[in-house]
C-alpha cells in the first residue's frame, strides 16, 4: 500500500468499478456504511452506463476523519473488478502517479487510458478469490481489500454488509461475509488495529433523502410528482414516510399536473412540495407562475442534471439557475434557494418550505445530481431557522369582517354576500389567507390580474398595486444570516496593499470551493468563501458589504457563468470580478479552483496587487470577465 492509503488522518478517495452487474455500487455502499460505523465521514458518488441493469458502473468514495465536502482531486485507490467499457469513466477517474490501481489480472492488463496515468499497479485475483467461497462474489472480496486499505475494521465491514444486504438470502449474506474476510488481510497486518470509534450521532443519507427530510421537518403534507432522473429517489424516499406523518403523495400524469396538484392542495391549506429535474421544471413553469400570482405557497425541488433538453439525465450541472430565476413570464417574484451540501439539502428544503408558506409564494430549490444522488456520512443537519407560518385571517378577524356588497337593485332580498379581501394590501405585503372550510371568508383565487378581492381586473392601478405587493413581501422579509454560508477563516485581512480574495459560489460547488480556500489559507492567502443559499431575492446590501474591497472570483458548474451574470446584473459585484465557469458533468475539484485563482490573482505565495492580478486575467474563454 502507498503512504497515502495508509494515512488515515487525511481524506482518501477510492473507486470501485465493474460491469455486468458485478456489484461495484453495492461494494461502495458497504464501504460507506462501514465508514459510518468507524466514526468516519464520507461521501459516495456513482456513475453508471445507460443500461437499466447489467451495465458498467463505478462507485467513487471519499472517506475522511473530518467532514468530507467534495470528491477531491484524485482517485487514490482504484479497485477494478474488470475493464469492460472502463473508457466511459476515464474522465471521472482522475488517477496520477501517486494513485494505486488494484486490478484482476484474470480480466486482462490495465488498459492504456488508465495505465497512462502512471499509477502504481497491483494485481489482486478478486474473482479467483471469490470462487473459493460458495456463491462468492468478486466485489465482496474487493470490499475486504479496499476496506482494510483505508482503515475500516473488519467488524464494521461485516456489520455494514449485513445492513446493505438485509433483503438478500441467508446464503448470499454468508458468502459475502466469507469473501470480505478473505479479502481482508490478516489482522496482524492490517487496520483491525485501527480503533473502531463509537460513532457519535452520525447520519448516512443521500441529498435526495435529506431534501425529503427537510420537507417532512417543514410539515409538508402533500407531494405530487412525475418520475424523473435524478429526482425520483427523493420521491421514493418520501412516499412511505409521508404515510407515517399523515401526508399524501400522488404520482401525477405529468409535471403540468403535478405542479397544479400542489397549487390545489396548498389552496386547501396544506404545505406542498414536488421534486423534478430540468425538463420537468420547464413544464412546471406556468404552474409556478400561477402559485406566484395567486399567492399560493408551493415548493419545487429541481434536482438538476446536465442540459439543455434531455441533456445528461444521470449527471450533474448547475445550469438551471437562469431558468429558476427568470423562467416565469411576467414579473413574478419568487424564492430561489440552493442547498450547499448533502446535509444542507435538509436545511435548505425546510427553510424554503417555511419561507414559501410565510410569504405565500413559490420557492424553487436548486439541488442537483451531485447532491441528490450522492450518499454521505455527515453530522445531523441543523434545523432551518424558525419562520412564522401562513398568515391566517383569524389573527385579525375583526379587520377582515365580511361586508355586504352592492347587488344590483335587489339588495333588500339578498343575504349578505361574502366580500373577503383575500389580496388586500398590508404593511408587510402579506395578505391574510383563508382556507376552504372557513365560513364567511370564501374567495376565488385567480391567475388573472385581480383586485383585492381576487376579482379579475385589468385596471392599471390594481395591477400595479398587486405587483408591488408581490415584490414587497419578498423584499421586506428578514432572512437573517442563512442567506449564505460565509467562511472567512482566521485571517481574512488586507496585507501589504494586497486585497483578500472572495470566492463566491452556490449550490453543490461549495464543497470544492471550500477545500480550495482551506488550501489557499495554508499557503498564506487571505481568502473567504461565500456560498449563496438564497439566490432570490438576492441580499444585495449584505453581499456588497461582504465583498467590499476584495478580489472576487465567482465559481460555478455551467458553461455561461449564470451566477456571475446574475450577480453582475444585480450590481453586487465589483467591476473587476472574475468568473470560473465550466459545464458539467464532472464534479468540481478543488484543484480547478486553485488553478483559476492562481491564474487570475497570481501565485498565492506572491503578494501581488489586485490591479496586477486583473491584468493577468488570461485568455481562457471560460473566464467570462466583462469587457
Amino acid at each position, binding site marked *: 500500500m502507498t503512504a497515502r492509503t495508509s494515512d488515515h488522518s487525511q481524506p482518501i478517495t477510492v473507486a470501485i468499478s465493474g460491469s455486468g452487474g458485478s456489484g461495484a455500487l453495492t461494494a461502495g455502499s458497504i464501504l460507506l456504511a462501514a465508514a459510518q460505523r468507524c466514526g468516519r465521514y464520507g461521501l459516495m458518488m456513482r456513475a453508471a452506463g445507460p443500461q437499466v441493469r447489467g451495465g458498467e458502473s463505478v462507485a467513487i468514495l471519499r472517506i475522511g476523519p473530518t467532514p468530507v465536502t467534495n470528491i477531491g482531486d484524485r482517485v487514490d485507490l482504484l479497485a477494478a473488478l474488470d475493464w469492460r467499457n472502463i473508457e466511459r469513466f476515464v474522465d471521472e477517474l482522475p488517477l496520477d502517479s501517486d494513485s494505486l490501481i488494484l486490478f484482476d489480472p484474470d480480466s486482462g492488463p490495465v488498459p492504456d487510458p488508465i495505465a497512462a496515468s502512471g499509477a502504481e499497479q497491483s494485481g489482486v485475483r478478486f474473482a479467483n478469490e471469490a470462487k473459493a467461497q460458495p456463491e462468492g462474489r468478486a466485489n465482496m472480496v474487493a470490499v475486504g481489500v479496499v476496506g482494510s486499505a483505508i482503515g475500516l475494521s473488519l467488524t464494521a465491514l461485516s456489520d455494514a454488509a449485513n445492513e446493505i444486504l438485509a433483503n438478500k438470502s441467508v446464503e448470499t449474506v454468508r458468502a459475502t461475509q466469507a469473501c470480505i474476510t478473505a479479502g481482508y488481510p490478516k489482522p496482524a497486518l492490517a487496520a483491525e488495529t485501527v480503533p473502531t470509534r463509537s460513532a457519535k450521532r452520525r447520519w448516512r443519507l443521500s441529498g435526495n433523502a435529506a431534501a425529503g427530510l427537510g420537507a417532512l421537518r417543514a410539515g409538508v403534507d402533500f407531494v405530487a410528482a412525475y418520475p424523473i432522473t435524478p429526482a425520483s429517489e427523493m420521491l421514493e424516499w418520501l412516499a412511505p414516510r409521508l404515510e407515517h406523518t399523515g401526508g399524501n403523495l400522488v404520482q401525477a400524469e405529468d409535471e403540468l399536473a403535478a405542479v397544479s396538484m400542489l397549487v390545489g392542495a396548498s389552496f386547501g391549506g396544506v404545505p406542498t412540495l414536488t421534486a423534478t429535474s430540468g425538463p420537468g421544471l420547464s413544464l412546471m413553469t406556468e404552474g409556478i407562475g400561477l402559485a406566484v400570482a395567486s399567492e399560493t405557497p408551493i415548493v419545487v425541488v429541481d434536482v438538476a442534471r446536465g442540459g439543455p433538453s434531455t441533456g445528461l439525465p444521470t449527471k450533474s450541472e448547475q445550469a438551471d439557475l437562469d431558468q429558476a430565476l427568470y423562467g416565469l413570464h411576467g414579473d413574478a417574484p419568487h424564492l430561489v434557494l440552493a442547498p450547499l451540501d448533502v446535509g444542507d439539502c435538509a436545511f435548505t428544503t425546510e427553510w424554503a418550505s417555511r419561507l414559501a408558506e410565510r410569504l405565500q409564494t413559490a420557492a424553487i430549490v436548486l439541488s442537483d445530481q451531485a447532491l441528490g444522488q450522492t450518499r454521505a456520512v455527515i453530522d445531523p443537519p441543523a434545523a432551518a431557522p424558525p419562520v412564522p407560518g401562513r398568515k391566517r385571517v383569524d389573527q385579525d378577524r375583526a379587520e377582515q369582517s365580511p361586508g355586504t356588497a352592492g347587488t*344590483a*337593485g*335587489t339588495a333588500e*332580498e339578498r343575504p349578505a354576500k361574502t366580500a373577503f379581501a383575500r389580496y388586500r394590501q398590508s404593511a408587510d405585503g402579506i395578505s391574510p389567507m383563508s382556507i376552504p372550510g372557513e365560513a364567511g371568508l370564501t374567495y376565488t383565487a385567480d391567475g*388573472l390580474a385581480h383586485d383585492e378581492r381576487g376579482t379579475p381586473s*385589468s385596471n392599471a392601478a390594481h395591477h400595479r398595486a398587486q405587483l408591488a405587493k408581490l415584490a414587497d413581501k419578498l423584499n421586506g422579509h428578514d432572512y437573517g444570516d442563512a442567506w449564505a454560508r460565509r467562511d472567512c477563516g482566521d485571517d481574512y485581512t488586507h496585507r501589504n496593499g494586497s486585497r483578500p480574495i472572495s470566492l463566491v459560489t452556490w449550490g453543490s460547488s461549495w464543497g470544492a470551493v471550500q477545500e480550495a480556500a482551506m488550501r489557499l489559507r495554508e499557503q498564506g492567502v487571505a481568502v473567504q468563501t461565500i456560498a449563496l443559499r438564497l439566490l432570490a431575492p438576492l441580499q444585495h446590501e449584505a453581499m456588497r458589504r461582504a465583498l467590499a474591497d476584495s478580489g472576487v472570483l465567482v465559481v460555478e458548474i455551467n458553461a455561461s457563468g449564470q451566477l456571475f451574470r446574475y450577480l453582475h446584473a444585480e450590481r453586487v459585484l465589483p467591476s473587476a470580478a472574475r468568473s470560473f465557469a465550466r459545464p458539467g458533468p464532472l464534479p468540481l475539484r478543488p484543484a480547478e479552483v486553485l488553478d483559476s485563482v492562481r491564474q487570475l490573482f497570481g501565485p498565492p505565495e506572491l503578494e501581488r496587487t489586485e490591479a496586477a492580478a486583473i491584468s493577468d486575467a488570461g485568455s481562457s474563454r471560460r473566464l467570462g470577465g466583462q469587457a
Partner: protein
Amino acid sequence: MSHMPTQPGAPSAMTPAEVVAQALELIQDSISRYEQLQSCFNAHNNETAAELFGRIAAIGRATAAAVARLQPAEALPRIAPWEFLWRCPDVLAPRPEQPSSEDCHHQFAIAELVRLALEREHCALTRLQDAHQQAHIAASRAILARIVEQQQQQLTELDALLAAVRANEATPPDDLDPPNRPE
C-alpha cells in the same frame, strides 16, 4: 343526502301545499333568471335592458308574495329541482327561427326582450291552467285558480310594460365593435 328522490307523484293528486310549492318554484325560477339577465345586461353596458329585467323581476316578486300568502296551514314540502313539473323554455333559449347571432346579443331590441319574457310567462300560465283543470283535490283546485289569477295579473302588467316600451322604442344601434378578446 344519501339517495336521490324518486319520480314525483301524479300531478292530478297534488295537495294544496304541493301546488303552492310548485308554483313558488315556477315563479322564483323566473325571477332568478330575470335577475341573471339584469346583471348580464348590466355587465354588457346595456342599462336599458338591465333596468327592464329589474322591473320584470320586481313584478315577479309581487306575484310570488301573493302566491306565498295562499300557503295552506301545513308546511310546504321541499321540492327537489328536478321534481319541478311546470318547466318552460328559457327567455333567451336558442330557437331554430333565430339562426343568426344578430338575433341575440347584448344590444337586443327592448321590445323583443319584453316579448320573450311574455312568452315565458304565457307558458307559465298555460302550465298553471292545465294543472288547474287536472287537479282532483278541491282545495288544490281552488288554490290553483287563485294562482292562475295572479299569473294573469302579472301578464297584464307585462303587457302594459310592453306597450310602454313599444311607444318609446328606438331601433338598437349596430354593434360597431367586433367580439372582444379578453384572455
